[in-house]
């Protein structure tokens, strides 16, 4: 038999068919071609055989293009049996390696719960103001003076009437005018209520329903009031409130701040209840107990009870304006109209050059935080910030999963090999490993939901939540989002291991496992370092912020707060209150003031030398009685105390050291006896004393102690400061409470301990500490879990090596060092990178912080020590276990 020469045939047909055909078909066709060629070559000349060969190739092309489907058993990925098998194997794997499963599931769950919390917060935020039918065409108008960095939520009072009268774009407009806050009295029943003046258009624009009353005209008549269902029940019990008359006494309560700051009561006369807001749990940025008809304002203007702003375009601080835009018009049409208003009304006002009125989308109200905001809201920036933190944690947890799965590839290698030999395609394996990671993620989801129920109350308990009112209700949508999150995390965490593991060649993994190496540790070390750097950053940051908090708590305000109780006057006469309280045995001193220093409120005044045309020097002013500085132990540097209140007391002031400098004197004694002119009433006052600088402004706001004036004007007093002698504080307070009932039977006693009041001004920082500290805790937990996983894995792998070393005489210490050296390096590098990073990043905000602490080496050392301790404990748990094993156990089987 003549030997056929395959080499005579060109290679291209083979390549062609391999390229265009399915694997099996190519094999078949090329085989056919060669066999036929061989057969022909035996009958005819090689040349002829070759010609036939080419004809055959051409004849094959049409059928090759048809592409026969694979005829081997279909390994259809979504085969029910296979899916069943995947889950079975996944589940067995989870159970078999309990430690690793726990690390993976717990780590992911921890991170997931934080993400879920943020989802809940966002969902909560989005649920506001959804009940308004017109929500897409409502706009709020903002004002922006040229020099302001962000707009004010408030607008000039006359804006609404101008817009309604002169602009056709605007279907309807309403305004809320602040200033309603006081007590309504009906048949001896007193209820405190806060709210706004508004007009009938309020109910056209907003979709509040009235349980009783007609929304068309409820706010049309003067002296009519619409109240909420809750207020109605408290005030009227079971009586029908509609048409009833209540007496209203205004105390100037602030619409937002729930605690005090009230002014002497002013009776506004009788009001008729014309509507009750339905009890529908309206979630809105508007919060009010009462709406008073704007028509009532006329009478109040007349009696000088409220300043008339009807034509005041200059004041844009007290009115919120909402418009309902013609549905065919856009925001830019609205802004164009507003520009026209500004051109018309503000060209004559020099100081309003560059003033702007801007339309704000209704949906943006709950995420923008502006000045004079009608409510407290978390600005969108905070959400971004929190989301970034959550993502960092999430990435860290996903890295753990990836790391451990890849590291433990060996335990799966045989399975992968067998699956491949049995015909599994790479995509089948990818699907399998992804389904495993998704399953882990879903288990984490269950755990995360449990964790979330634990975190939620803690979050709601944060100080700041009393302003933000997060309810964090879970709805179906939220649960669907959670589920989606779990799927996404499953895929993200699993994609790298899936791609990596599915790429194993069966020949290698089945034949000699020794050639399988889990890969260089390089990448994993980098990831681990990344996790620890993040952890160190959060740890040091939270320590730093906590130190800052402590620093504020221990701050020397230069006045005494010990045993001092601040009692709100609530409109009662100061003389009467102090006379009554002084008679209580435990009370050692009483003084009065209008503002509690260093709690965030301040009043200004301008002073200049009388008879000159010089600029007024801006200063802060505190209205106190003559005993104030003694009671608070503020040092008097020169001159004498304020005189007791009386005719002449108005003429004298005290100033602080800063004011002395500000007014151009070098020494306190020089200013004594000098007279100054007050900017607003041109009165002349005389400086009779100088006090040491003490903190008047909030520590958080400013470092400087500005110039301050103390003035005895009893009509401004809002608080009495009661000094309680020695111990027996509680007994004295209950006595004060009894006495208070005689002074004011209507309003319950409102008091606060001065030191606690000051501490409360920093509660916000403590919230930040809690949040950052919690994140730090999560970050370090996840990093340590990851390290624990790696240490466990290394320990398992090195069991034999350790056995052999021990047999050869290695000591426990040596072995522990051997096993932990790599991890210690990781920790060390993390500190080397993390410490300077944290130092730089934290100093960015710290440098702009008033009254700051130093970010010293001690914080970095403490943070690093914490990191090392946790890290070493983590590694130690494994290395000690391995170094103690009896070599007999690990080597017996060989």
């Amino acid at each position, binding site marked *: 038999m003549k030997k*056929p020469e*395959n080499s005579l045939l060109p290679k291209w047909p083979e390549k062609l068919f391999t390229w265009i055909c399915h694997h*099996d078909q190519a*094999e*078949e*066709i*090329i*085989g*056919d*071609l*060669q*066999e*036929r060629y*061989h*057969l022909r070559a035996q009958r005819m000349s090689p040349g002829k055989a070759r010609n*036939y060969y080419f*004809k*055959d*190739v*051409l*004849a*094959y*092309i*049409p*059928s090759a293009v*048809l592409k*026969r489907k694979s*005829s*081997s058993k279909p390994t259809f990925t979504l085969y029910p049996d296979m899916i069943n098998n995947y889950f079975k194997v996944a589940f067995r794997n989870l159970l078999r390696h309990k430690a690793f499963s726990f690390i993976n599931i717990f780590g992911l769950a921890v991170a997931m719960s934080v993400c879920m919390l943020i989802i809940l917060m966002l969902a909560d935020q989005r649920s506001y103001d959804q009940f308004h039918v017109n929500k897409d065409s409502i706009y709020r108008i903002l004002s922006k003076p040229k020099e302001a960095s962000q707009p004010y939520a408030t607008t000039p009072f006359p804006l609404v009437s101008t817009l309604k009268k002169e602009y056709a774009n605007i279907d309807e407009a309403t305004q809320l005018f602040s200033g309603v806050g006081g007590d309504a009295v009906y048949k001896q029943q007193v209820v405190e209520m806060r709210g706004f003046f508004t007009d009938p258009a309020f109910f056209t624009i907003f979709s509040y329903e009235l349980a009783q009353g007609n929304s068309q005209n409820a706010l049309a008549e003067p002296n009519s009031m619409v109240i909420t269902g809750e207020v109605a029940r408290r005030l009227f019990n079971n009586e029908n409130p509609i048409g009833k008359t209540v007496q209203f006494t205004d105390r100037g309560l602030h619409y937002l701040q729930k605690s005090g700051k009230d002014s002497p009561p002013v009776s506004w006369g009788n009001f008729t209840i014309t509507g009750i807001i339905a009890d529908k749990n309206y979630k809105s940025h508007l919060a009010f107990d009462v709406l008073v008809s704007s028509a009532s304002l006329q009478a109040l203007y007349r009696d000088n009870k409220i300043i008339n702003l009807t034509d005041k375009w200059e004041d844009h601080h007290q009115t919120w304006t909402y418009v309902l835009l013609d549905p065919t018009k856009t925001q830019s049409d609205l802004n164009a109209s507003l520009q026209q208003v500004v051109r018309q009304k503000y060209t004559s006002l020099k100081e309003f050059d560059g003033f702007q009125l801007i339309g704000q989308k209704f949906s943006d109200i709950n995420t923008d935080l502006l000045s004079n905001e009608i409510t407290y809201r978390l600005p969108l920036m905070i959400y971004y910030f929190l989301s970034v933190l959550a993502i960092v944690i999430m990435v860290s947890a996903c890295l753990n999963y990836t790391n451990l799965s890849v590291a433990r590839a060996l335990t799966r290698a045989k399975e992968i090999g067998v699956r491949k030999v049995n015909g599994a395609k790479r995509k089948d394996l990818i699907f399998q490993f992804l389904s495993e990671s998704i399953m882990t993620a879903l288990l984490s989801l269950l755990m995360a939901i449990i964790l979330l129920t634990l975190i939620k109350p803690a979050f709601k308990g944060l100080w700041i939540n009393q302003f933000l009112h997060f309810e964090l209700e879970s709805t179906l949508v939220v649960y669907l989002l959670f589920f989606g999150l779990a799927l996404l995390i499953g895929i993200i965490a699993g994609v790298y291991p899936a791609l990596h593991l599915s790429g194993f060649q069966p020949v290698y993994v089945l034949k000699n496992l020794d050639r399988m190496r889990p890969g260089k540790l390089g990448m994993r070390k980098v990831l681990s370092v990344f996790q620890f750097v993040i952890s160190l950053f959060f740890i040091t940051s939270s320590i730093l912020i906590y130190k800052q908090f402590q620093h504020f708590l221990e701050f020397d305000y230069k006045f005494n707060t010990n045993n001092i109780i601040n009692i709100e006057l609530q409109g009662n006469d100061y003389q009467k209150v102090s006379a009554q309280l002084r008679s209580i045995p435990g009370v050692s001193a009483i003084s009065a003031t209008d503002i509690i220093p260093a709690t965030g409120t301040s009043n200004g005044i301008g002073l200049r030398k009388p008879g000159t045309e010089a600029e007024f020097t801006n200063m802060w002013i505190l209205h106190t009685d003559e005993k104030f500085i003694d009671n608070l132990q503020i040092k008097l540097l020169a001159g004498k105390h304020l005189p007791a209140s009386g005719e002449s007391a108005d003429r004298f002031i005290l100033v602080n050291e800063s004011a002395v400098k500000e007014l151009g004197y070098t020494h306190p004694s020089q200013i004594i006896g000098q007279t100054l002119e007050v900017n607003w009433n041109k009165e002349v006052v005389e400086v009779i004393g100088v006090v040491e600088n003490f903190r008047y402004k909030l520590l958080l706001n400013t470092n400087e102690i500005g110039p301050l004036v103390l003035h005895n004007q009893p009509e401004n007093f809002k608080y009495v400061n009661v000094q309680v002698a020695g111990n027996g504080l509680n007994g004295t307070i209950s006595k004060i409470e009894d006495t208070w009932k005689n002074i004011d039977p209507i309003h319950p006693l409102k008091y606060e301990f001065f030191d606690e009041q000051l501490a409360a001004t920093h509660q916000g920082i403590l919230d930040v500490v809690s949040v950052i500290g919690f994140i730090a805790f999560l970050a370090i937990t996840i990093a340590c879990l990851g390290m624990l996983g790696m240490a466990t894995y290394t320990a398992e792998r090195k069991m034999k090596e350790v056995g052999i070393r021990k047999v050869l005489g290695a000591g426990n210490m040596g072995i522990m060092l051997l096993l932990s050296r790599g991890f210690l390096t990781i920790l060390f590098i993390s500190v080397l990178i993390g410490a300077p990073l944290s130092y730089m990043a934290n100093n960015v905000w710290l440098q702009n912080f008033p009254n700051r602490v130093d970010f010293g080496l001690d914080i970095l050392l403490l943070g690093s020590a914490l990191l090392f301790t946790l890290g070493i404990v983590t590694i130690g748990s494994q290395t000690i276990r391995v170094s103690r094993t009896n070599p007999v156990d690990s080597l017996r089987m060989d």
Partner: protein
Amino acid sequence: MRRSDLGEFEEVVLLTVAVLTPNAYSVMIAEELESATGNTVSTGAVHAALQRLEDKGMVNSYMGEATKERGGRRKRLFTVTPAGSRILHDVRSVRESLWGRILPQALPKIDMAR
């Protein structure tokens, strides 16, 4: 079954598969047809016919042994399915009943030994 009709070439290939079973694959079928008809039959044409027959459900196929002549590649072996068998029997009975009804003088005499 997409189409129940059977082309002439397909019918011959199907018959050949039946003849050559269990060793029916494109090269053998092509060789067989070539020697039976004396015309050149390309493997590709046979392959295409087999593929159509398989689509119609008249043959089954499976991958067979690899041989040296094929450069170590496997071949695809074909067998006739019950559907294939039925259509072959149908065609045959149609033809035989037609042959049986031809009158002796109807066909001009030819010399079969040519």
